[in-house]
């Protein structure tokens, strides 16, 4: 919601998130996963592409603890990681 109250300018329209709101993690159940993710980010110079495994782990933790609606990870954009995983399992 931009504060420039001009008549002609288009103002920013915030959109609701696609899957709604994350329930709050009051008991810190997934805090360790979050710490791992943050550490990875700091090590890799805040590049998201290199820390996708950790973010996947965090979301899986949330789903297991009922802090997030369970959903197949491909639908969350982790399809490339899912394709690698069976290969890693074989090894």
């Amino acid at each position, binding site marked *: *919601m*931009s504060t420039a109250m001009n008549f002609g300018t*288009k103002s*920013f*329209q*915030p*959109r*609701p*998130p*696609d*899957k*709604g*709101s*994350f329930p*709050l*993690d*009051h008991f*810190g159940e*997934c*805090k360790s996963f*979050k710490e791992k*993710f*943050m550490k990875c*980010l*700091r090590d890799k*110079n*805040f*590049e*998201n*592409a290199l820390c*996708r495994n950790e*973010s996947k782990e*965090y*979301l899986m933790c949330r789903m297991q603890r009922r802090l*997030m609606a369970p*959903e197949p990870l*491909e*639908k*969350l*954009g*982790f*399809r490339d990681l899912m394709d690698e995983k069976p290969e890693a399992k074989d090894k």
Partner: protein
Amino acid sequence: MGGFWCRGWRSVALCGRCWRPPAWPGRSVESAERGLRRLGTWKRPSGARGPAAQPPRRPASSNPFQRAQEDEWRRRNKTVLTYVAAAAVGMLGASYAAVPLYRLYCQTTGLGGSAVAGHSSDQIENMVPVKDRIIKVTFNADVHASLQWNFRPQQTEIYVVPGETALAFYKAKNPTDKPIIGISTYNVVPFEAGQYFNKIQCFCFEEQRLNPQEEVDMPVFFYIDPEFAEDPRMVNVDLITLSYTFFEAKEGHKLPVPGYN
């Protein structure tokens, strides 16, 4: 008759604008007027009809057939007028009814007021990251003056590419001794890039309750639409700033939530 006319004309020619020459009072004026009338500059007296005459307003015709025709015309005019008036009222009503009807349409089709159909999970599943376009996303956290939370992002920036889902964290702490409920909204700068910024899940627009002395991590799961890389207006955009602002949610207060929920 000709002489009469000639005299009048002469009086006009002799004195120009002056209608009352000293030698010829009143009478010459009359003759001048009559002369002009004959020339056709003044209105013809009623009774004489020209080729393009309009039907008289008053029912002055004594002819019964003409009167019937006039009645017919009058009746038709009334019908047409009624139709036109009904159409005008109908248009006015339709413009008032359009608002709830559009809302209903948006609810049924799920478009939620946006011109473009919402991004479904199929799109997320199939989108391909555009690896050559790296965008820096910086995070900003704000709190309304009346809200006593400590709210800040846990990373200052993150480098993403369009089409790749990313996770970011904010942290909020309630340092007071009573539970506080907050509700947040967000903003994305630059404005045009904000349309490509899609949040899969976050913590905005819903009341979040923090107990006394509680500290929580608030994640934001988002991605930038791959079409961002194809938009010519976005060629120079390398930095997107995501800004969250928390407000205090008061009892009984209902904040306007975007979309037609």
